[in-house]
């Protein structure tokens, strides 16, 4: 860090002296225009998904119209091959896809954080064993591992969530371990060790809060990836099983040539919805990275 930068930082620090950390993060987050738009879009989509039982014009799994009819006044996005309303199914599918993304991320984050904390803090043999195990899991191509697991266990919503959760953690474990290694050398942790503070306090009340920001940023990308993976798995017929709709298995029909050529309303909307959700999450993650990073240089 050069002298000039330091001066600027002091100047900025004085300027925003009266705001707390949360306000700083929010101010920086708003800088990122695309992330702001993404946040609004995501909130809208999430509320539509949550309110699906009230918004959806028809029950999602019931036959309510003729086979594969084009979008019309009654069926905004047409009906599928067996006469279910595509728009209603889309709303429910979004629920499922978001649920998979969030739950899988929650599971993998908990596993990754615990293993990373233990490996980084204790070091030595424990660290070596955990990190080698992480290496092993990371060596298997991710999708292949998920596919094999999906073929072994009975496919279904919770199977997918558990599989993605149990396969996704190595990245977070590595990240947390690296941060813990740095924090362990910091004076406040050393002083707590010397003071004989209980281990639980050091790990969860001192080290963990200081590494929450990078975990949060990483977790947003895991949510996006999990949604993409669920879509790919369900597209291949190994994910969420019909009649339950997910964004991926709604695209499954597009493997047939008739659907692909003659009934675009069946596969175009879920596809674009996946893109919109994933890109919104990615933009938000990017803005969070800039906003949460205390050393960020992007001040204007």
């Amino acid at each position, binding site marked *: 860090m050069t002298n000039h930068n330091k001066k600027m930082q002091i100047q900025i620090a004085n300027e925003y002296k009266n705001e707390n950390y949360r306000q700083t993060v929010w101010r920086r987050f708003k800088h990122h225009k695309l992330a702001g738009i993404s946040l609004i879009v995501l909130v809208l989509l999430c509320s539509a998904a949550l309110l699906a039982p009230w918004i959806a014009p028809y029950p999602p799994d019931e036959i309510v119209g003729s086979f594969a009819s084009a979008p019309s006044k009654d069926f905004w996005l047409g009906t599928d091959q067996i006469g279910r309303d595509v728009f209603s199914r889309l709303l429910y599918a979004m629920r499922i896809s978001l649920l998979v993304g969030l739950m899988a991320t929650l599971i993998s984050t908990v596993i990754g954080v615990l293993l990373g904390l233990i490996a980084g803090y204790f070091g030595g043999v424990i660290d070596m064993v955990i990190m080698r195990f992480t290496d092993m899991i990371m060596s298997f191509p991710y999708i292949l591992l998920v596919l094999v697991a999906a073929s072994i266990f009975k496919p279904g919503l919770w199977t997918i969530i558990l599989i993605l959760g149990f396969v996704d953690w190595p990245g977070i474990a590595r990240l947390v371990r690296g941060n813990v290694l740095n924090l362990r050398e910091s004076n406040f942790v050393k002083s707590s060790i010397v003071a004989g503070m209980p281990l639980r306090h050091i790990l969860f009340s001192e080290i963990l809060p200081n590494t929450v920001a990078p975990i949060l940023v990483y977790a947003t990308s895991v949510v996006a990836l999990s949604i993409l993976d669920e879509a790919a798995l369900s597209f291949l017929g190994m994910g969420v099983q019909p009649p339950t709709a997910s964004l991926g298995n709604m695209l499954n029909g597009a493997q047939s040539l008739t659907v692909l050529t003659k009934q675009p309303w069946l596969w175009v909307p879920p596809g674009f919805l996946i893109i919109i959700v994933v890109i919104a999450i990615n933009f938000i993650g*990017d803005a969070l990275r800039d906003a949460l990073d205390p050393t960020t240089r992007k001040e204007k």
Partner: protein
Amino acid sequence: MIKYIMKRILIAIPVLIGITVIDYAIMCMAGSPLEMMQGPRISEAAVEAKEIALGLDKPFYIQYFVWLGQLLQGNLGYSMKSFLPVGTMIAEHIGPTLLLMGVSMLVGLLLAVPAGIYSAVHQYSKGDYSIVTLSFLGSSIPGFFLSLLLIYLFTIKLGWLPSSGMMTLGTEGGFIDIVQHMIMPVLVLAVSMAGTNIRYIRSAMLEILQADYIRTARAKGIGRFLVVHKHALRNALIPIVTVIGMQIPMLFGGAVVIEQVFSWPGLGLMTLSAITSRDYPVIMGVCLLSAVVVLIGNLLTDILYAVVDPTIQMQ
């Protein structure tokens, strides 16, 4: 240097052993192949005879060592469907996959490296914003959906490109035919790779451009072109090496889905049909092979790192 390489190899060995154990354990969890052959027309005695013939009556760890011993002799087992040796099946299918992966990686890098560097050099310009936004789009599109869009556009609407296979059926193929079949799958894989890599290379390059030696080079007044192309680019090799290393597992995975969509006759298509028909020896062989390839890839990346940045050996 040799000491560094040796150390890396020594670290890789337990990981390799662990991979074989995990691979074997997963397959055992998958259930016994005997269940598959059970039916009204097969007697219990036949099942038992098969169990002994396959060595499934022995405890888990003995089965593992028998399997490992066979493996070391180059025997990956036999497919339960076609009864061909798994090794032969893999050898037959790996060519198209390697071709697809290699070309995709090359195209992905050709897209990502110039874009990432341009973006970093012109930080906060309109070009930078468009490149970063596009790269987000690239990494947010599901590969199979992009494939569907491309097939819809180029095969169905325009009729320019074939949508499945590696060569036109009934012909010898030939260079141009294969290239035509490759364009769409390569594009899909390259786009998803470039999406992630552009941002990675951009931020790595930004860090390099703020280093002291770049300021010195600037201060000498040798001009922006020389600074970027001679001083900064050479150091940008490090992030590029990282990117190549990160790509290998991603490519293997991406290829499974993309090969399925485009019916590309490679390892991915073979694996997926093995997965649907529960042909465990084949699945196991492919998993093991890809894990080993990834491991070797990581090892090579580590060594390449040390070549590009000699200070790494000291750490």
